[in-house]
């Protein structure tokens, strides 16, 4: 038998019960209606012009609906009135952080229709530039995720090291941002002399950047508290919403188009692995992207050492006419699966282009994942889903 409670303990207990009762009364008496919180279309955390209309019950989100179209530029229609080489100029600007990666699936689809295959050297350089644009893209996310939880330093580090990768891309393609370098049947130019050694050095620096982010951000207690078990997306939900890329792999689904459906680039020639994380929360998404960036630097390093010699352009006619037919090619872009469904009627330009962009599907899970979360987590979840507005709206 426990001893009888002391007088002070009894008082405390009574006070506690009274406080609970008062609390309950207040909650009954006050009619706390839902509040609508509108985020965007201009908000520093939405990476552009996404608008999210949230219904709040106190601090909790009842529903969150992404409203888009503020950056819709009509790509699919514009592609119908342009020739194939002109299309790549536009397509660069869909996902503006990983521009070169956007061109590749479109060019591959056109090549498939024409029955042309780029020579091995062109394919290796394509793969290298593809992975470089992945690094340039995701490294910004790695820094930016810090800003979403209130740490400003990482984003400066990200901009500093991203410049190095952009320099390497610029040295080959002449374009810092939008290279427009891929051609049907190969590449515009060969790589310049001395570029391979420089790129090796830059890749070593990028690995250093990944280590820095690991120390600075992932090991940070505040970051872990804000991200762990926040915005959990289980694997089956992720699949049913059509998520792809790192968002899917962070939910424990082992799925990577580079390995599963290599459309003819050089990924199968090198030794690398696909990273997954079983948790599916914001932290897992960050973790997977960090590992992928590091893995991409290793892919680039291996590819640089093994570039085959030979021409960089296959024999294609000067004026490109694509024979009638349909082709769908998708690749594993920095943000996820990006695919182009190209319908040709034999003219100078495509008859119809349907663009499947990763971000559009990735944010479709927002209403599901936001339900029941708290207001401060809205931004971290959005940040960890990592979308690019041009990629959503086209």
């Amino acid at each position: 038998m426990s001893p009888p409670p002391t007088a002070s303990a009894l008082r405390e207990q009574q006070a506690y019960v009274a406080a609970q009762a008062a609390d309950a009364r207040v909650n009954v008496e006050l009619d706390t209606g839902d509040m609508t919180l509108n985020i965007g279309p201009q908000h520093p955390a939405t990476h552009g012009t996404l608008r999210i209309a949230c219904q709040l019950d106190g601090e909790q989100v009842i529903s969150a609906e992404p409203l888009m179209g503020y950056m819709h530029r009509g790509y699919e229609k514009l592609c119908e009135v342009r020739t194939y080489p002109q299309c790549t100029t536009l397509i660069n600007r869909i996902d503006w952080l990983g521009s070169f990666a956007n061109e590749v699936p479109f060019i591959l689809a056109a090549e498939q229709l024409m029955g042309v295959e780029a020579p091995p050297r062109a394919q290796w350089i394509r793969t290298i530039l593809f992975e470089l644009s992945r690094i340039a893209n995701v490294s910004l996310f790695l820094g930016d995720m810090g800003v979403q939880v209130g740490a400003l330093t990482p984003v400066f580090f990200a901009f500093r090291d991203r410049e190095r990768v952009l320099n390497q891309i610029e040295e080959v393609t002449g374009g810092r941002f939008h290279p427009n370098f891929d051609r049907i049947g190969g590449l515009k130019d060969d790589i310049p002399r001395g570029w391979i050694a420089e790129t090796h050095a830059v890749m070593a620096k990028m690995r250093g950047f990944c280590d820095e982010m690991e120390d600075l951000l992932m090991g940070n207690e505040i970051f872990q508290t804000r991200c762990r078990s926040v915005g959990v997306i289980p694997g089956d939900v992720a699949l049913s919403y059509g998520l792809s890329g790192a968002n899917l792999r962070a939910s424990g689904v082992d799925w990577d188009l580079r390995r599963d459906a290599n459309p003819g680039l050089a990924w199968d020639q090198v030794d690398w692995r696909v990273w997954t994380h079983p948790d599916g929360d914001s932290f897992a998404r960050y973790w997977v992207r960090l590992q992928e960036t590091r893995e991409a630097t290793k892919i680039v390093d291996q590819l640089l050492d093994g570039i085959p010699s030979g021409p960089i352009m296959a024999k294609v006619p000067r004026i490109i006419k694509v024979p009638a037919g349909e082709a769908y090619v998708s690749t594993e872009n920095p943000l996820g699966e990006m695919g182009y469904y190209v319908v040709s009627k034999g003219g100078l330009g495509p008859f119809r282009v349907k663009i499947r962009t990763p971000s559009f599907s990735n944010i479709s899970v927002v209403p599901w994942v936001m339900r029941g979360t708290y207001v401060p987590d809205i931004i971290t979840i959005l940040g960890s889903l990592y979308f690019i507005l041009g990629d959503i709206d086209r």
Partner: protein
Amino acid sequence: MALVDKVKLPKPLSWLLNFGRARSLWVYQWGLACCAIEMGAAFGSPRYDVMRLGVIPFPASPRQADLVVISGTVTDKMAPVIRRLYEQMPEPKYVISMGSCANCGGPYWDSYSVTKGVDQVIPVDVYVPGCPPRPEALLEGIVLLQERIQREDMQERWRGEPIVVPTSAASSTRVPAAPGASGTAPTSAPATGTASAVPAGSAQA
């Protein structure tokens, strides 16, 4: 304001005020499209470091900002929002239109949903061409705007009439013409640099 209306400011005083205003521009953080990343590189990257020009890229609210950089594609759906946020900025306010899209529609010149030039919606002070412009180009645009503010007559500014800023020898060496965008482009802009300043208010929609 009333004082400025009635009294002609002595030249040293207006020089001093303009000097101060030109070198403490608060930029509203506003990213629209690709150019926003280059703007971020100019503002956030240690390599470009816009703060050495006295530009402070902190305000996340238009109510604290002097300058807004329209960086990227303006769509018809976004245009009213831009107009509204611009109207929330306190006078005197300046606008830099960054990139071909904001200047004239750029690669989307035949798109059904893109506004062909933000100067149809709000008056633009400096156009920075490029797709996207390099961060250095944006920095030059800011320097051009500062030169322009330095030579501003405050009385005219308050009166709200279009200001024609005399072009200095320095700025006429970099010439470029106003990007072909608008028919409202200033008449006096000499043209050959990488960025060009036009009279404010010339493009009031």
